[in-house]
Protein backbone atom coordinates (compact mmCIF):
# COMPACT_ATOMS: atom_id res chain seq x y z
CA UNK A 1 0.00 0.00 0.00
CA UNK A 2 1.27 3.43 -0.89
CA UNK A 3 1.18 5.91 1.89
CA UNK A 4 1.25 9.48 0.71
CA UNK A 5 2.91 12.22 2.66
CA UNK A 6 -0.48 13.85 2.88
CA UNK A 7 -1.82 10.83 4.78
CA UNK A 8 1.13 10.80 7.15
CA UNK A 9 0.64 14.47 7.72
CA UNK A 10 -3.05 13.87 8.47
CA UNK A 11 -2.27 11.09 10.91
CA UNK A 12 0.26 13.27 12.62
CA UNK A 13 -2.16 16.19 12.94
CA UNK A 14 -4.97 13.89 14.09
CA UNK A 15 -2.73 12.56 16.82
CA UNK A 16 -1.69 15.99 17.93
CA UNK A 17 -5.32 17.13 17.90
CA UNK A 18 -6.12 14.24 20.22
CA UNK A 19 -3.24 15.31 22.44
CA UNK A 20 -4.50 18.89 22.60
CA UNK A 21 -8.06 17.76 23.27
CA UNK A 22 -6.97 15.50 26.10
CA UNK A 23 -5.05 18.34 27.71
CA UNK A 24 -7.90 20.77 27.23
CA UNK A 25 -10.56 18.43 28.60
CA UNK A 26 -8.23 16.92 31.22
CA UNK A 27 -10.36 17.93 34.19
CA UNK A 28 -13.68 16.75 32.75
CA UNK A 29 -12.40 13.39 31.50
CA UNK A 30 -10.57 12.76 34.78
CA UNK A 31 -13.82 13.40 36.71
CA UNK A 32 -15.58 10.79 34.56
CA UNK A 33 -12.77 8.24 34.73
CA UNK A 34 -12.51 8.56 38.50
CA UNK A 35 -15.90 6.83 38.71
CA UNK A 36 -14.78 3.92 36.54
CA UNK A 37 -14.04 0.71 38.52
CA UNK A 38 -10.43 0.65 37.33
CA UNK A 39 -9.70 3.87 39.24
CA UNK A 40 -12.46 3.94 41.86
CA UNK A 41 -11.62 0.55 43.36
CA UNK A 42 -7.86 1.07 43.32
CA UNK A 43 -7.55 4.60 44.68
CA UNK A 44 -9.79 4.35 47.66
CA UNK A 45 -8.36 6.98 49.99
CA UNK A 46 -10.36 9.79 48.44
CA UNK A 47 -12.02 10.70 45.20
CA UNK A 48 -9.33 13.35 44.66
CA UNK A 49 -6.71 10.64 44.74
CA UNK A 50 -8.51 8.79 41.95
CA UNK A 51 -8.90 12.02 39.96
CA UNK A 52 -5.18 12.73 40.29
CA UNK A 53 -4.37 9.23 39.08
CA UNK A 54 -6.68 9.76 36.08
CA UNK A 55 -4.92 13.00 35.29
CA UNK A 56 -1.54 11.32 35.35
CA UNK A 57 -2.75 8.77 32.81
CA UNK A 58 -4.34 11.50 30.68
CA UNK A 59 -1.10 13.52 30.69
CA UNK A 60 0.79 10.45 29.58
CA UNK A 61 -1.70 9.79 26.78
CA UNK A 62 -1.52 13.42 25.67
CA UNK A 63 2.25 13.31 25.57
CA UNK A 64 2.26 10.08 23.57
CA UNK A 65 -0.30 11.53 21.13
CA UNK A 66 1.60 14.79 20.69
CA UNK A 67 4.74 12.78 19.97
CA UNK A 68 2.76 11.07 17.18
CA UNK A 69 3.38 7.63 18.67
CA UNK A 70 -0.20 6.46 19.26
CA UNK A 71 0.70 2.91 18.23
CA UNK A 72 3.87 2.59 20.24
CA UNK A 73 3.67 0.73 23.57
CA UNK A 74 7.26 1.77 24.21
CA UNK A 75 6.58 5.50 23.75
CA UNK A 76 8.48 7.49 26.39
CA UNK A 77 5.23 9.16 27.48
CA UNK A 78 4.09 5.89 29.10
CA UNK A 79 7.19 5.57 31.29
CA UNK A 80 5.93 7.95 33.98
CA UNK A 81 2.67 6.07 34.49
CA UNK A 82 3.96 2.53 33.94
CA UNK A 83 4.42 1.94 37.65
CA UNK A 84 1.01 3.37 38.46
CA UNK A 85 -0.59 1.20 35.78
CA UNK A 86 1.22 -1.83 37.14
CA UNK A 87 -0.09 -1.09 40.62
CA UNK A 88 -3.61 -0.64 39.27
CA UNK A 89 -3.58 -3.90 37.29
CA UNK A 90 -2.00 -5.78 40.18
CA UNK A 91 -4.66 -4.44 42.52
CA UNK A 92 -7.44 -5.46 40.13
CA UNK A 93 -5.80 -8.86 39.63
CA UNK A 94 -5.82 -9.41 43.41
CA UNK A 95 -9.58 -9.05 43.44
CA UNK A 96 -9.71 -11.99 41.06
CA UNK A 97 -9.92 -10.26 37.70
CA UNK A 98 -8.26 -11.92 34.73
CA UNK A 99 -5.92 -9.88 32.52
CA UNK A 100 -8.64 -9.90 29.85
CA UNK A 101 -11.16 -8.43 32.30
CA UNK A 102 -8.67 -5.76 33.34
CA UNK A 103 -8.12 -4.96 29.67
CA UNK A 104 -11.88 -4.67 29.34
CA UNK A 105 -11.94 -2.07 32.10
CA UNK A 106 -9.28 -0.07 30.30
CA UNK A 107 -11.27 -0.27 27.07
CA UNK A 108 -14.31 1.07 28.93
CA UNK A 109 -12.46 4.36 29.51
CA UNK A 110 -12.62 5.09 25.80
CA UNK A 111 -16.26 6.17 25.60
CA UNK A 112 -15.98 9.21 27.87
CA UNK A 113 -12.80 10.28 26.11
CA UNK A 114 -14.57 9.95 22.76
CA UNK A 115 -17.48 12.10 23.97
CA UNK A 116 -15.16 14.87 25.05
CA UNK A 117 -13.06 14.67 21.90
CA UNK A 118 -16.19 14.94 19.73
CA UNK A 119 -17.38 17.91 21.74
CA UNK A 120 -13.96 19.54 21.48
CA UNK A 121 -13.87 19.14 17.69
CA UNK A 122 -17.49 20.25 17.13
CA UNK A 123 -16.53 22.97 14.67
CA UNK A 124 -14.16 20.83 12.61
CA UNK A 125 -15.03 19.07 9.32
CA UNK A 126 -16.19 15.47 9.56
CA UNK A 127 -12.97 14.11 8.01
CA UNK A 128 -10.91 15.76 10.73
CA UNK A 129 -13.19 14.41 13.47
CA UNK A 130 -12.97 10.91 11.98
CA UNK A 131 -9.20 11.12 11.82
CA UNK A 132 -8.98 12.23 15.43
CA UNK A 133 -11.39 9.53 16.60
CA UNK A 134 -9.33 6.92 14.80
CA UNK A 135 -6.18 8.22 16.47
CA UNK A 136 -7.87 8.20 19.88
CA UNK A 137 -9.11 4.64 19.37
CA UNK A 138 -5.61 3.51 18.44
CA UNK A 139 -4.16 5.35 21.42
CA UNK A 140 -6.62 3.72 23.85
CA UNK A 141 -5.84 0.34 22.31
CA UNK A 142 -2.16 0.95 22.96
CA UNK A 143 -2.90 1.93 26.56
CA UNK A 144 -4.77 -1.35 26.92
CA UNK A 145 -1.73 -3.22 25.66
CA UNK A 146 0.54 -1.39 28.09
CA UNK A 147 -1.73 -2.35 30.99
CA UNK A 148 -1.98 -5.96 29.75
CA UNK A 149 1.77 -6.16 29.53
CA UNK A 150 2.34 -4.86 33.05
CA UNK A 151 -0.46 -7.06 34.36
CA UNK A 152 1.02 -10.17 32.81
CA UNK A 153 4.63 -9.59 33.83
CA UNK A 154 3.49 -8.52 37.27
CA UNK A 155 1.31 -11.60 37.59
CA UNK A 156 4.11 -13.90 36.57
CA UNK A 157 6.39 -12.30 39.13
CA UNK A 158 3.75 -12.60 41.84
CA UNK A 159 3.15 -16.24 41.04
CA UNK A 160 6.85 -17.01 41.08
CA UNK A 161 7.33 -15.25 44.39
CA UNK A 162 4.36 -16.95 46.00
CA UNK A 163 5.41 -20.34 44.69
CA UNK A 164 8.87 -19.83 46.14
CA UNK A 165 7.49 -18.70 49.49
CA UNK A 166 5.12 -21.64 49.63
CA UNK A 167 7.96 -24.05 48.93
CA UNK A 168 10.12 -22.57 51.64
CA UNK A 169 7.35 -22.46 54.20
CA UNK A 170 6.43 -26.06 53.51
CA UNK A 171 9.88 -27.49 54.20
CA UNK A 172 11.29 -26.63 57.61
CA UNK A 173 14.47 -28.45 58.56
CA UNK A 174 14.59 -29.25 62.28
CA UNK A 175 17.64 -30.01 64.39
CA UNK A 176 16.74 -33.01 66.56
CA UNK A 177 20.08 -33.56 68.24
CA UNK A 178 23.68 -32.53 67.86
CA UNK A 179 24.49 -34.00 64.46
CA UNK A 180 20.92 -35.01 63.55
CA UNK A 181 18.56 -32.98 61.36
CA UNK A 182 15.08 -33.93 60.14
CA UNK A 183 12.65 -32.64 57.56
CA UNK A 184 8.98 -33.62 57.88
CA UNK A 185 7.50 -33.82 54.40
CA UNK A 186 3.83 -32.95 54.12
CA UNK A 187 1.76 -33.14 50.97
CA UNK A 188 2.62 -34.13 47.46
CA UNK A 189 6.27 -34.17 46.45
CA UNK A 190 6.57 -32.74 42.97
CA UNK A 191 9.83 -31.96 41.22
CA UNK A 192 10.02 -28.32 42.33
CA UNK A 193 9.30 -29.21 45.94
CA UNK A 194 11.68 -32.09 46.14
CA UNK A 195 14.35 -29.80 44.72
CA UNK A 196 13.75 -27.32 47.56
CA UNK A 197 13.64 -30.13 50.13
CA UNK A 198 16.92 -31.48 48.84
CA UNK A 199 18.59 -28.07 48.88
CA UNK A 200 17.41 -27.07 52.34
CA UNK A 201 18.26 -30.46 53.84
CA UNK A 202 21.77 -30.42 52.36
CA UNK A 203 22.32 -26.83 53.51
CA UNK A 204 21.21 -27.85 57.01
CA UNK A 205 23.65 -30.77 56.97
CA UNK A 206 26.49 -28.31 56.40
CA UNK A 207 25.19 -25.69 58.84
CA UNK A 208 24.52 -28.19 61.65
CA UNK A 209 27.45 -30.47 60.87
CA UNK A 210 24.89 -33.25 60.79
CA UNK A 211 26.01 -36.83 60.41
CA UNK A 212 22.40 -38.00 60.07
CA UNK A 213 19.49 -36.56 58.11
CA UNK A 214 15.98 -37.90 58.56
CA UNK A 215 13.39 -37.56 55.80
CA UNK A 216 10.01 -38.15 57.42
CA UNK A 217 7.34 -39.06 54.86
CA UNK A 218 4.47 -39.59 57.33
CA UNK A 219 2.63 -36.69 55.71
CA UNK A 220 3.18 -37.77 52.13
CA UNK A 221 -0.08 -39.31 50.87
CA UNK A 222 1.37 -41.60 48.22
CA UNK A 223 4.75 -42.79 47.12
CA UNK A 224 5.02 -43.42 43.41
CA UNK A 225 8.13 -44.03 41.36
CA UNK A 226 8.72 -40.29 40.94
CA UNK A 227 8.62 -39.64 44.69
CA UNK A 228 10.84 -42.66 45.27
CA UNK A 229 13.31 -41.29 42.75
CA UNK A 230 13.37 -37.89 44.47
CA UNK A 231 14.01 -39.59 47.82
CA UNK A 232 16.82 -41.65 46.30
CA UNK A 233 18.43 -38.55 44.84
CA UNK A 234 18.33 -36.74 48.18
CA UNK A 235 19.80 -39.76 49.93
CA UNK A 236 22.56 -40.05 47.33
CA UNK A 237 23.42 -36.33 47.53
CA UNK A 238 23.56 -36.40 51.35
CA UNK A 239 25.81 -39.44 51.18
CA UNK A 240 28.19 -37.64 48.82
CA UNK A 241 28.51 -34.95 51.46
CA UNK A 242 29.29 -37.46 54.15
CA UNK A 243 25.93 -37.70 55.89
CA UNK A 244 23.60 -40.66 56.17
CA UNK A 245 19.90 -40.35 55.32
CA UNK A 246 17.13 -42.25 57.02
CA UNK A 247 13.63 -42.30 55.53
CA UNK A 248 11.03 -42.56 58.26
CA UNK A 249 7.25 -42.63 58.39
CA UNK A 250 6.92 -45.52 55.98
CA UNK A 251 3.33 -46.55 56.78
CA UNK A 252 2.26 -50.14 56.07
CA UNK A 253 0.18 -49.03 53.07
CA UNK A 254 3.14 -47.17 51.61
CA UNK A 255 5.48 -50.08 52.26
CA UNK A 256 3.03 -52.27 50.37
CA UNK A 257 2.84 -49.82 47.46
CA UNK A 258 6.61 -49.68 47.25
CA UNK A 259 6.80 -53.47 47.08
CA UNK A 260 3.92 -53.75 44.60
CA UNK A 261 5.39 -51.12 42.28
CA UNK A 262 8.70 -52.92 42.49
CA UNK A 263 10.44 -49.70 43.48
CA UNK A 264 14.03 -50.15 44.44
CA UNK A 265 15.01 -48.08 47.46
CA UNK A 266 18.31 -49.94 47.31
CA UNK A 267 20.56 -49.18 50.23
CA UNK A 268 18.29 -46.56 51.78
CA UNK A 269 17.76 -46.99 55.51
CA UNK A 270 14.02 -46.90 56.26
CA UNK A 271 12.17 -46.87 59.56
CA UNK A 272 8.49 -47.00 60.47
CA UNK A 273 8.43 -43.90 62.64
CA UNK A 274 10.41 -40.75 63.23
CA UNK A 275 11.20 -42.05 66.76
CA UNK A 276 12.71 -45.23 65.31
CA UNK A 277 14.78 -43.20 62.89
CA UNK A 278 16.00 -40.95 65.70
CA UNK A 279 16.94 -43.99 67.78
CA UNK A 280 18.86 -45.38 64.81
CA UNK A 281 20.74 -42.11 64.33
CA UNK A 282 21.49 -41.72 68.04
CA UNK A 283 22.91 -45.24 68.15
CA UNK A 284 25.04 -44.36 65.14
CA UNK A 285 26.37 -41.32 66.98
CA UNK A 286 27.14 -43.44 70.00
CA UNK A 287 24.49 -41.88 72.20
CA UNK A 288 23.08 -44.44 74.62
CA UNK A 289 19.93 -44.61 76.73
CA UNK A 290 20.46 -45.64 80.33
CA UNK A 291 17.74 -48.02 81.58
CA UNK A 292 17.05 -45.90 84.67
CA UNK A 293 17.76 -42.42 83.38
CA UNK A 294 14.98 -40.08 82.34
CA UNK A 295 16.58 -38.94 79.12
CA UNK A 296 19.37 -39.84 76.82
CA UNK A 297 22.89 -39.60 78.11
CA UNK A 298 26.07 -39.52 76.16
CA UNK A 299 28.18 -42.56 76.69
Amino acid at each position, binding site marked *: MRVSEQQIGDEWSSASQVGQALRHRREQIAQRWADAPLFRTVFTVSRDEAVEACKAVLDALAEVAEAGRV*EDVDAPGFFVVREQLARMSASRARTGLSPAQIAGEVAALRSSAVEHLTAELEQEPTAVVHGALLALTTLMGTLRLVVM*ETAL*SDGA*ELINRQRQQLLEVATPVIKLWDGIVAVPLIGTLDSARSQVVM*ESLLEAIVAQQAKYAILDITGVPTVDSLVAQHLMKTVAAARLMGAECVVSGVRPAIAQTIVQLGLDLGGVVTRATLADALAFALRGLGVGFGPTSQGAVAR
Partner: protein
Amino acid sequence: MTTTGTDTHRGSPTCLPIRSDMDLMWIRQEVRRLATEAQFSLVQQTKLVTAASELARNTLVHGGGGHMEATVLNEGVHTAVRLVFADSGPGIADVDQAMSDGYTSGGGLGLGLGGARRLVHDFRLDSEPGRGTTITVVMWHGGVPPTRQAI
Protein backbone atom coordinates in the same frame (compact mmCIF):
# COMPACT_ATOMS: atom_id res chain seq x y z
CA MET B 1 2.45 -2.69 16.69
CA THR B 2 5.40 -3.86 18.72
CA THR B 3 5.16 -6.82 21.07
CA THR B 4 8.05 -6.32 23.43
CA GLY B 5 6.57 -8.75 25.93
CA THR B 6 7.28 -11.81 23.84
CA ASP B 7 10.38 -10.80 21.94
CA THR B 8 13.54 -12.63 22.83
CA HIS B 9 16.28 -10.13 23.49
CA ARG B 10 19.75 -11.45 23.09
CA GLY B 11 22.89 -10.07 24.61
CA SER B 12 25.95 -10.11 22.39
CA PRO B 13 27.36 -13.65 22.33
CA THR B 14 30.81 -14.47 23.58
CA CYS B 15 32.85 -17.03 21.70
CA LEU B 16 35.61 -19.09 23.28
CA PRO B 17 37.91 -21.63 21.62
CA ILE B 18 38.11 -25.23 22.85
CA ARG B 19 41.59 -26.42 21.95
CA SER B 20 43.13 -27.64 25.18
CA ASP B 21 42.19 -28.64 28.74
CA MET B 22 43.31 -25.14 29.76
CA ASP B 23 40.45 -23.81 27.57
CA LEU B 24 38.01 -25.94 29.55
CA MET B 25 38.90 -23.86 32.61
CA TRP B 26 38.23 -20.64 30.73
CA ILE B 27 34.89 -22.04 29.60
CA ARG B 28 33.90 -22.95 33.16
CA GLN B 29 34.88 -19.48 34.31
CA GLU B 30 32.97 -17.71 31.54
CA VAL B 31 29.84 -19.82 31.99
CA ARG B 32 29.95 -19.16 35.73
CA ARG B 33 30.17 -15.42 35.01
CA LEU B 34 27.16 -15.52 32.65
CA ALA B 35 25.10 -17.65 35.04
CA THR B 36 25.81 -15.16 37.81
CA GLU B 37 24.88 -12.30 35.48
CA ALA B 38 21.59 -14.08 34.71
CA GLN B 39 21.04 -14.28 38.51
CA PHE B 40 20.91 -18.07 38.61
CA SER B 41 20.82 -19.72 42.03
CA LEU B 42 24.03 -21.40 43.21
CA VAL B 43 22.62 -24.83 42.34
CA GLN B 44 21.65 -23.69 38.86
CA GLN B 45 25.04 -22.07 38.35
CA THR B 46 26.80 -25.26 39.37
CA LYS B 47 24.60 -27.40 37.13
CA LEU B 48 25.19 -25.18 34.10
CA VAL B 49 28.95 -24.93 34.65
CA THR B 50 29.16 -28.71 35.10
CA ALA B 51 27.14 -29.31 31.93
CA ALA B 52 29.39 -26.87 30.06
CA SER B 53 32.46 -28.68 31.33
CA GLU B 54 31.09 -32.03 30.11
CA LEU B 55 30.11 -30.68 26.71
CA ALA B 56 33.34 -28.73 26.19
CA ARG B 57 35.32 -31.85 27.01
CA ASN B 58 33.17 -33.77 24.53
CA THR B 59 34.02 -31.14 21.88
CA LEU B 60 37.70 -31.40 22.75
CA VAL B 61 38.03 -35.18 23.02
CA HIS B 62 35.56 -36.41 20.39
CA GLY B 63 35.30 -33.45 18.05
CA GLY B 64 39.00 -32.69 17.97
CA GLY B 65 38.41 -29.20 19.34
CA GLY B 66 36.03 -26.43 18.35
CA HIS B 67 34.43 -23.49 20.08
CA MET B 68 31.65 -22.46 22.46
CA GLU B 69 29.28 -19.57 21.92
CA ALA B 70 27.48 -18.27 25.00
CA THR B 71 24.52 -15.86 25.06
CA VAL B 72 22.28 -14.46 27.77
CA LEU B 73 18.66 -14.37 26.60
CA ASN B 74 15.73 -12.38 27.93
CA GLU B 75 12.18 -13.37 27.18
CA GLY B 76 9.74 -11.27 29.14
CA VAL B 77 10.44 -11.94 32.81
CA HIS B 78 12.46 -15.04 31.97
CA THR B 79 16.23 -15.04 31.65
CA ALA B 80 18.24 -17.82 30.15
CA VAL B 81 21.79 -18.71 29.23
CA ARG B 82 22.30 -20.49 25.92
CA LEU B 83 25.49 -22.36 25.14
CA VAL B 84 26.40 -23.69 21.70
CA PHE B 85 29.28 -26.15 21.37
CA ALA B 86 30.48 -26.72 17.83
CA ASP B 87 33.19 -28.87 16.35
CA SER B 88 34.02 -30.04 12.84
CA GLY B 89 35.13 -33.47 13.92
CA PRO B 90 33.96 -36.89 12.75
CA GLY B 91 30.38 -36.34 13.95
CA ILE B 92 28.18 -38.85 15.70
CA ALA B 93 26.76 -41.71 13.66
CA ASP B 94 24.30 -43.02 16.25
CA VAL B 95 22.98 -40.11 18.30
CA ASP B 96 20.71 -42.26 20.49
CA GLN B 97 23.61 -44.50 21.40
CA ALA B 98 25.88 -41.54 22.18
CA MET B 99 23.23 -40.06 24.45
CA SER B 100 22.74 -43.22 26.48
CA ASP B 101 24.47 -43.54 29.82
CA GLY B 102 27.46 -45.75 29.96
CA TYR B 103 28.20 -45.45 26.26
CA THR B 104 31.69 -44.15 25.68
CA SER B 105 34.09 -44.05 22.80
CA GLY B 106 36.76 -42.14 24.64
CA GLY B 107 37.50 -44.00 27.84
CA GLY B 108 35.43 -41.76 30.10
CA LEU B 109 32.49 -42.75 32.22
CA GLY B 110 30.09 -42.29 29.36
CA LEU B 111 28.00 -39.85 31.36
CA GLY B 112 29.02 -36.72 29.47
CA LEU B 113 26.20 -36.19 26.97
CA GLY B 114 23.34 -37.91 28.79
CA GLY B 115 24.45 -36.37 32.08
CA ALA B 116 24.72 -32.88 30.63
CA ARG B 117 21.21 -33.24 29.17
CA ARG B 118 19.83 -33.96 32.65
CA LEU B 119 21.45 -30.81 34.03
CA VAL B 120 19.86 -28.29 31.63
CA HIS B 121 16.34 -27.44 30.47
CA ASP B 122 16.78 -27.65 26.71
CA PHE B 123 19.23 -29.84 24.85
CA ARG B 124 19.64 -30.23 21.11
CA LEU B 125 22.23 -32.24 19.26
CA ASP B 126 22.85 -31.81 15.54
CA SER B 127 25.37 -34.10 13.99
CA GLU B 128 26.19 -35.62 10.67
CA PRO B 129 28.97 -38.13 10.18
CA GLY B 130 31.98 -36.35 8.72
CA ARG B 131 30.51 -32.89 9.23
CA GLY B 132 30.97 -32.27 12.90
CA THR B 133 28.64 -31.86 15.84
CA THR B 134 26.75 -28.91 17.29
CA ILE B 135 25.18 -29.16 20.72
CA THR B 136 22.91 -26.39 21.98
CA VAL B 137 21.79 -26.22 25.60
CA VAL B 138 19.61 -23.66 27.39
CA MET B 139 19.13 -23.12 31.10
CA TRP B 140 16.27 -20.88 32.25
CA HIS B 141 16.03 -18.79 35.34
CA GLY B 142 12.62 -18.19 36.88
CA GLY B 143 11.09 -21.24 35.25
CA VAL B 144 10.81 -22.33 31.67
CA PRO B 145 8.59 -19.87 29.74
CA PRO B 146 5.54 -21.31 28.00
CA THR B 147 6.90 -20.38 24.60
CA ARG B 148 10.47 -21.48 24.24
CA GLN B 149 11.92 -19.69 21.27
CA ALA B 150 15.49 -19.71 22.41
CA ILE B 151 16.78 -22.93 20.99
